[in-house]
């Protein structure tokens, strides 16, 4: 039997934030989580988050998880790989998978922050292996670094569908299309813009009809739908894909809350059946709280704020200290974040529990594009979303998100020095720098870039517009590497294209093989060098290049010249590496026979 002041079921952003508040106030806090590491959904998110600095805006999700975990102190006990299986009147049971035993827990207070599970949709053959929820694909590729396939169909264009599509491209897969059944992209416009300019089509009023394959997915049939979402006959077409990724929303995981006797209500705006809670996130049972996606499908920032509210409320109840001020501060943060149009639904849903308020935000978008010929940012962020790192990162105070955080950013070009920091920080990758006629007849464009391989100075690439269409040739002028992994690539394009080009593509080299034995391509070598393998021996061990039967006869020189070009060292300096016997494949049998012969 484990006794604790405060039991937290689920160590995602909500649970961790609550634990930070109670543990720093001296309460014995126990976090039980069924995952292999703490952090919930955060551990598989590789993109920079929106919001403001106080809640880690512009920090990547998995790094936010680390920062939250680092704030836990010695009052916190963690039980990983342990699933809470039952909440009874006097006791909680949890199954510890590692030790294969049921643990009994007796807490004074409980937070249920178990998150949500993925929705599923009916279509023909939807049981086939290769059909995954978007979160599952994220877990595989970002947590365990395994790609379940090479060609993907994404179903759903909410933020999750858009983000996971982008992450699939980063991991090296192709996204053949994103289908969206309604007439409008569900997620943020800045997320949609990121995948569109890389050439991924977002097909509105389209749905999946059928998965093709016997044992596993080998293709998909998609089709157009009418206003009533019925498939229009004759519009069906086949896509050759090996993964179908379903991103059609999440459902709060209410089982434990319901078992505990928490009142459950059906509120579609919050994701379906949700537990009742008040302003302090307390349910109808005095010592049971809920927070995060379980309390209503929203996002990590609000999950963290809700978690903090719970932590403070529990600390107040158990210590008797007056914490009203801390509590109100967090409640105000929630109002601030939820004031934008994307939270209209959530506010409407929450009205069922208690009255909601919202601040007004500005819809005034930047009108002018600034002084032609000066190197300056163009901000393509036209939707009211809760985000402001552009403002807080600018060292010259040139950008403002006036009033509420959901307002649109405005820029005062007279204050801007053209440093490019905003372009590197913006989580929406929505800021581009331009300079017309930086050279006679050429415009300069600076693009935020998060892919490998990084292009090199002088390289010719194909310039793409906002829809991913080819619009001409461009030349790389400079690559500014950034520690936050959003690098700035400077492109020179024909004059007149400054407001047209928003992306580029490196001409395909994927079939130029360097090492014929191990089938290693130029592109793979370049990527490895960008990753930091700048020594020939290291490269060899990492890629197995030159370790095939030929012993590196064909590839050694080519590899060395790629290394020399990328690292700007001479081949002489890099050296030719070590040769090891045998210089050709020899049968063990022959060696053994030889040994015996020699001993004679």
């Amino acid at each position, binding site marked *: 039997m484990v006794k604790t002041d405060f039991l937290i079921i689920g160590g995602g952003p909500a649970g961790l934030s609550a634990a930070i508040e109670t543990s720093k106030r001296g309460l014995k806090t126990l976090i039980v989580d*069924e*995952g*292999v590491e703490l952090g919930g959904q955060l551990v598989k998110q*590789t993109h920079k988050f929106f919001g403001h600095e106080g809640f880690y805006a512009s920090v*990547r999700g*998995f790094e936010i998880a680390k920062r939250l975990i680092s704030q836990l102190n010695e009052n916190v006990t963690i039980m990983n*790989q342990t*699933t809470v299986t039952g909440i009874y009147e006097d006791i909680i049971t949890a199954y510890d*998978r590692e030790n294969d035993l049921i643990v009994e827990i007796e807490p004074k207070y409980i937070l249920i922050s178990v998150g949500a*599970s*993925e929705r*599923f949709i009916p279509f023909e053959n939807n*049981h*086939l*292996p*290769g*059909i*995954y*929820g978007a*979160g*599952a694909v994220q*877990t*595989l*590729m*970002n*947590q*365990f*670094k*395994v*790609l*379940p*396939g090479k060609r993907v169909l994404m179903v759903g264009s909410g933020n999750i569908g858009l983000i996971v599509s982008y992450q699939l491209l*980063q*991991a*090296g897969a192709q996204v053949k299309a994103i289908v969206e059944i309604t007439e409008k992209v569900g997620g943020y416009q800045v997320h949609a813009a990121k995948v569109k300019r890389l050439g991924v089509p977002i097909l509105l009023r389209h749905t999946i009809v059928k998965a093709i394959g*016997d*044992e*596993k997915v080998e293709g998909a049939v998609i089709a157009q739908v009418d206003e009533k979402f019925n498939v229009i006959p004759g519009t069906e077409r086949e896509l050759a894909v090996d993964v179908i990724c379903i991103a059609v929303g999440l459902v709060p*995981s209410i089982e434990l809350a319901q078992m505990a006797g928490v009142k459950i209500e059906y509120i579609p705006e919050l994701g379906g059946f949700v537990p009742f809670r008040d302003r302090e996130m307390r349910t109808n049972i005095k010592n049971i709280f809920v927070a995060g996606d379980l309390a209503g499908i929203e996002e990590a920032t609000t999950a963290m704020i809700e978690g903090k509210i719970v932590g403070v409320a529990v600390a107040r109840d158990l210590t008797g200290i007056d914490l009203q001020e801390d509590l109100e501060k967090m409640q105000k943060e929630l109002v601030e974040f939820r004031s934008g149009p994307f939270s209209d639904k959530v506010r409407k849903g929450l009205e069922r529990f208690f009255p909601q308020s919202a601040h007004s935000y500005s819809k005034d978008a930047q009108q002018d594009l600034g002084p032609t010929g000066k190197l300056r940012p163009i901000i393509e962020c036209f939707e009211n979303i809760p985000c402001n790192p552009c403002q807080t990162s600018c060292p010259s105070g040139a950008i403002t998100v006036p009033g509420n955080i959901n307002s649109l950013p405005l820029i005062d070009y007279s204050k801007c020095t053209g440093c490019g920091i905003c372009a590197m920080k913006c989580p929406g990758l929505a800021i581009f720098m331009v300079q017309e006629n930086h050279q006679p007849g050429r415009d300069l464009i600076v693009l935020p870039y*998060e*892919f*490998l391989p990084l292009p090199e100075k002088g390289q010719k690439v194909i310039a793409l517009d906002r829809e991913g269409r080819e619009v001409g040739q461009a030349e790389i002028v400079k690559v500014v590497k950034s520690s936050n*992994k959003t690098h700035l690539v400077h492109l020179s394009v024909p004059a007149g294209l400054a407001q047209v080009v928003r992306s580029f593509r490196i001409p395909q080299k994927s079939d130029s093989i360097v090492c014929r034995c191990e089938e290693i391509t130029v592109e*793979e070598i370049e*990527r*490895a060098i*960008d*990753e930091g393998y700048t020594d020939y021996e290291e490269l060899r061990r990492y*890629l197995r290049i030159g370790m095939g039967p030929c012993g590196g006869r064909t590839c050694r020189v080519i590899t060395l010249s790629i290394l020399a070009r990328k690292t700007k060292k001479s081949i002489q300096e890099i050296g030719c590496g070590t040769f090891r016997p045998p210089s050709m494949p020899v049968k063990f049998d022959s060696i053994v026979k030889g040994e015996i012969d020699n001993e004679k």
Partner: protein
Amino acid sequence: MRRIAFHPILEIEKPKTIKFFFEGRELEAFEGETIAAALVANGIDVFGQTEHSRPRGFYCAIGKCSSCLMIVDGVSNVRSCITLVKDGMQVERQVGRGEITW
């Protein structure tokens, strides 16, 4: 190979490799990964069969959907998506609801 060798954002560590068995076949896995991740990395997508003989893969990877149930070291209904793979582990496809063990 389905392991990601390069990533623009994530560090690709090279964890210790271990051996496990899938339907009697020896396969390689990384220490610290789930059974499901190890199988997918080895190109295995079919984790079992439904009672009606349909092939079954997994859907959610967070232990909620129960499509990933497999027989692990003789025990049925193990959620392979949140159970870590261990050296020498015997993993088998499960058909239907599996045998109940005590």
